[in-house]
């Protein structure tokens, strides 16, 4: 056996997280990129079918198991970790760097995990490490959003663990990850729910548009890549062909685009478009056909690239102008033409414009729905594509780089940010021009031709007329500052009342009881401190003194005599 040669790719990144703080401060950012590249190299050199089994208690854990699906996700996770590291090369923040390495490592670990225990551990490492990328922004908003984020993921992790335990109790303790038949068991449903939290399936999605826009500029790039796409991988691995996922996915595609029309924060718009784009992948998995799964996988790959690039561009705008809302931005095209150009590559990719990588993957998923006879799902996904182009391809750039010139004077951005964006953009273009480069890695053989003439004609019509409708309505789409309510309203709104009831009221009751007890004790102490003074009057604060307050002997003798006399008289009367 060659098992001793199998090194899980996650090991490179986790080792990096341990070693990084020991290195000189100046080389840490560069080392980050190297560790990510080492992970990428490991993904490439692992042979197909390689596995690493480790005995643990009375189980065998499969720390690494390689097939086409896990390899494809592994490649893109490791690549984007390196690209994100390059984007953050100027950063001097060891906490963020270590958290990002742990996070990316967790994502790789979960991807190659062959058993549920390993999968779960990596899953939780991701949840914890990613929270630090939100908190690292070090402001009140980020702190609060980070708490809501981790609470949501603890809930998802809890559901997942419960499902895993239940599953293990049913099938004789085996923890091996296998695909569940649709609606297999209650345990499978619990696992599905846990994974759905991370996939941001509506209505379990609010942690995403809540936390991502508040994360650090560099942290959001990592966040945009790992959590949701690891969940997509898990869905493709465990739940192919679950009908419920098809409709959940379609709902996500539309939900995200509707909210993106209303959102004002540029990274908020992009966050809602993660929900929308992941919807395409979830729907592809729900179809369960070879083409659907290929489409979901290819779209996850493309999406990680262009979405990271979108977050890089939006982050650069935020970093150089200090503004994050469309309603405060405008006219940056003159001062940041390169950022605009790079952003538009990503925007055309996500919108499915031919020659960009979104076109070759999204259209595959949509066509898979048609091939499977799902006309309604196909039409609704096409409608969502229209919405994607509307918000990310037109509205966001129009109000950031064009529109009203607000006279902003953006600072200079470090060169490495541009380099990372250029690198990511070139892969987006490369895959758009040569789809075969991506298709050859897909889990099933591909017989799909995105550049069929009919398909090009349809796409041209769809996009150009979307542009026309946008142009007509551009005044209506003027950004507004403010809050857009999402389903988190149902727990954030009552949160104040519940906090009042369970924290404030309980606290007040506790305080009140304490105060009453202290007052009672003080009163008792007042009574017992000097009883003589209470009877005789005088200074109420005087302390009892044997010499001053003890009664005279004659007083005691008089009292005793009087009592005795009374008793004697009473006895005589009673006896008679």
């Amino acid at each position, binding site marked *: 056996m060659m098992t001793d040669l199998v090194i899980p790719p996650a090991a490179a990144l986790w080792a990096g997280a341990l070693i990084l703080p020991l290195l000189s401060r100046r080389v840490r950012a560069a080392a980050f990129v190297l560790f990510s590249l080492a992970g990428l190299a490991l993904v490439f050199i692992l042979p197909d079918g390689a596995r690493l089994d480790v005995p643990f208690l009375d189980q065998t854990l499969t720390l690494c198991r390689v097939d086409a699906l896990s390899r494809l996700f592994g490649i893109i996770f490791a690549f984007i970790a390196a690209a994100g590291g390059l984007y953050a090369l100027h950063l001097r923040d060891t906490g963020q760097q270590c958290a990002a390495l742990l996070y990316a490592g967790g994502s790789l670990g979960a991807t190659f995990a062959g058993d549920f225990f390993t999968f779960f551990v990596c899953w939780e490492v991701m949840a914890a490490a990613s929270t630090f990328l939100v908190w690292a922004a070090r402001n009140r908003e980020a702190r609060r959003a980070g708490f809501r984020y981790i609470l949501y993921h603890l809930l998802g992790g809890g559901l997942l663990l419960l499902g895993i335990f239940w599953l293990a109790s049913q099938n004789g303790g085996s923890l091996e990850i296998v695909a569940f038949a649709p609606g297999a068991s209650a345990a499978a449903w619990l696992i599905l729910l846990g994974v759905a939290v991370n996939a941001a399936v509506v209505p379990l999605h609010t942690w995403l548009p809540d936390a991502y826009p508040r994360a650090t500029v560099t942290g959001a790039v990592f966040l945009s890549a790992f959590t949701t796409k690891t969940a997509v991988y898990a869905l493709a691995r465990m739940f192919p062909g679950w009908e419920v996922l098809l409709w959940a996915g379609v709902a996500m595609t539309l939900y995200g685009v509707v909210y993106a029309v209303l959102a004002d924060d540029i990274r908020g718009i992009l966050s809602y478009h993660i929900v929308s784009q992941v919807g395409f992948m979830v729907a592809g998995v729900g179809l369960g056909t070879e083409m659907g799964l290929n489409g979901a996988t290819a779209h996850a790959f493309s999406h990680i690239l262009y979405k990271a690039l979108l977050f890089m561009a939006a982050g650069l705008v935020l970093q150089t102008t200090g503004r994050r809302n469309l309603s405060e931005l405008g006219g940056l095209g003159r001062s940041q033409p390169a950022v605009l150009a790079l952003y538009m590559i990503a925007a055309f990719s996500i919108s499915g414009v031919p020659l960009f990588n979104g076109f070759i993957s999204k259209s595959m998923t949509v066509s898979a729905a048609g091939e499977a006879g799902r006309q309604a799902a196909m*039409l609704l996904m*096409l409608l969502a594509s229209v919405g994607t182009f509307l918000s990310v391809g037109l509205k966001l750039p129009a109000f950031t780089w064009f529109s009203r010139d607000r006279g902003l004077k953006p600072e200079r951005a470090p060169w490495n940010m541009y380099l990372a964006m250029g690198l990511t953009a070139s892969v987006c273009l490369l895959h758009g021009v040569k789809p075969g480069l991506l298709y050859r890695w897909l889990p099933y053989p591909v017989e799909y031709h995105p550049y069929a003439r009919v398909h090009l004609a349809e796409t041209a019509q769809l*996009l150009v007329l979307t542009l026309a409708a946008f142009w007509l309505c551009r005044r209506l789409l003027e950004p*507004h500052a403010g809050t857009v309510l999402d389903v988190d309203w149902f727990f954030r709104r009552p949160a104040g009342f519940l906090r009042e009831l369970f924290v404030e009221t309980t606290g007040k009751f506790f305080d009140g009881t304490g105060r009453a007890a202290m007052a009672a004790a003080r009163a008792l102490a007042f009574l017992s401190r000097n009883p003589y003074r209470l009877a005789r009057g005088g200074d109420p604060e005087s302390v009892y003194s044997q010499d001053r307050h003890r009664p005279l002997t004659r007083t005691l003798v008089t009292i005793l005599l009087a009592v005795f006399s009374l008793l004697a008289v009473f006895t005589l009367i009673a006896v008679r």
Partner: protein
Amino acid sequence: MRKIIRGALTAVLAGLVLLSLAAQVFHKPEGNHRASWWESAPGFFALFGFIGCLFLIAVALGLGRAFLRKSGRYYDDD
């Protein structure tokens, strides 16, 4: 200058749509088989893009005006 660019762009895009319509009319689909009438109806996707976009804007802005959009800071814990 802006006007010229805008005019040129409009012309190019309009030409693209006309070209695509012509392609749909004169070219029988190859390879990917068409499952339904709407996929082979020329201009369906143009209509769908235009009306779909207006529909999405209307739905989003309608919901926003009705109850989703609140001005200022809405949540105490934000």
